[in-house]
């Protein structure tokens, strides 16, 4: 179809989203996009989610951390923020996330708010609650492997 004249084209805002998961979680773009759609529709309803029109443009996730750029309609960024906050898991894997910034272009969003790839985990052995445990550490953050899951800790917990 023919291009819309410029003043009728939708105006977008690009949200930089930072994600965190447990180290063993595997999350991909399609699953995250699905959660974004569910979250907007569940919180804002059909009309609200059509207004926000959230689309995941970029997605990286590796080693328990990641980032995404979500395109939303201008003037609906607060609604989008609220809906994103309600994403508590992707494909059953718990995620923590936060919007680190918003920009008018993808490029500005990437340059200002997206950090480079995270450094890989280092394997560590720690004593946690009087038991020897293996752990995955990145800078200050240490995820301790317990019998069934992980416990989030930091280097302060092992001094």
């Amino acid at each position, binding site marked *: 179809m023919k291009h819309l004249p410029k003043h009728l084209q939708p105006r977008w805002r690009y949200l930089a989203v930072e994600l*965190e998961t*447990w180290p063993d979680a595997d999350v991909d773009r399609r699953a995250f996009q699905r959660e974004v759609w569910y979250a907007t529709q569940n919180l804002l309803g059909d009309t609200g989610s059509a207004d926000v029109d959230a689309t995941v443009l970029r997605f990286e996730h590796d080693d328990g951390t990641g980032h995404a750029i979500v395109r939303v309609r201008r003037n609906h960024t607060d609604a989008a*923020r609220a809906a994103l*906050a309600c994403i*508590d898991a992707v494909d059953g894997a718990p*995620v923590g996330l936060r919007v680190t910034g918003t920009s008018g272009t993808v490029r500005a969003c990437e340059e200002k708010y997206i950090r480079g790839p995270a450094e890989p985990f280092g394997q560590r052995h720690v004593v946690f609650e009087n038991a020897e445990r293996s752990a995955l550490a990145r800078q200050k953050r240490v995820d301790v492997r317990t019998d069934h899951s*992980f416990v*989030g800790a*930091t280097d302060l917990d092992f001094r």
Partner: protein
Amino acid sequence: MYEAVHAHPDGDSTVARQALTAADYGFDGVVVRNHGDEPADYDAEAVAEAYGIDVVEGVEVRADTPSQASGLVGNHRSKHTVVVVHGGDRAINRFAVENPAVDVLAHPMRGDGDFNHVLANAAADNGVRVEFSLRQVLGDSGGSRVRALGDLRKLRELVADADAPYVVSADPRSHLELRAPRELVALGEAIGFTGDQMREGLEAWSRLAERNRRVTDDSFVEPGVRLDEDDG
């Protein structure tokens, strides 16, 4: 703005990890509100210094009956800066709002808990803050979230009418459940709160911690009277 968190063993992340993440997210402080039977082992000052965020030692008292709750509040009052009562039961809700030694009544609508204008007025008279818990709004979906939203609305109307003090919390059990202040404000606006109400509710934790630290300080004598080191 402060967030009130449950830390390991009452959650999946230690106090240090919660504080580190909260500092990243732009909070000025965290209140550790582990349930009384699952206390966390931590050094609040060391964590605060390492991550540049205030760490407030609190407790969430969980009891089956008002008399048991009364005993537990008495025990914990002198040991913790912030004393929260685990609400969600009608008798416990009533006990909490009628007791000035209680700082916060947590999630009064959870389970079969309920709230009314009498309790709201009692909370206002006794200065007991009522918590708006966003936990179920953030984590649930479908019918249970609809009920949680309905309960929050009812609670909001009662609290506003009685002009009772309140706090807001996402009640996170791990660092992954934390959400940044701006996200919480946006979510509050989407579900019928005003942005100012949300910010006020997140700020209220810090004022509460500051007041309680002041009155438990050695230089405090009685309201309006305190020992000043500079006076010779």
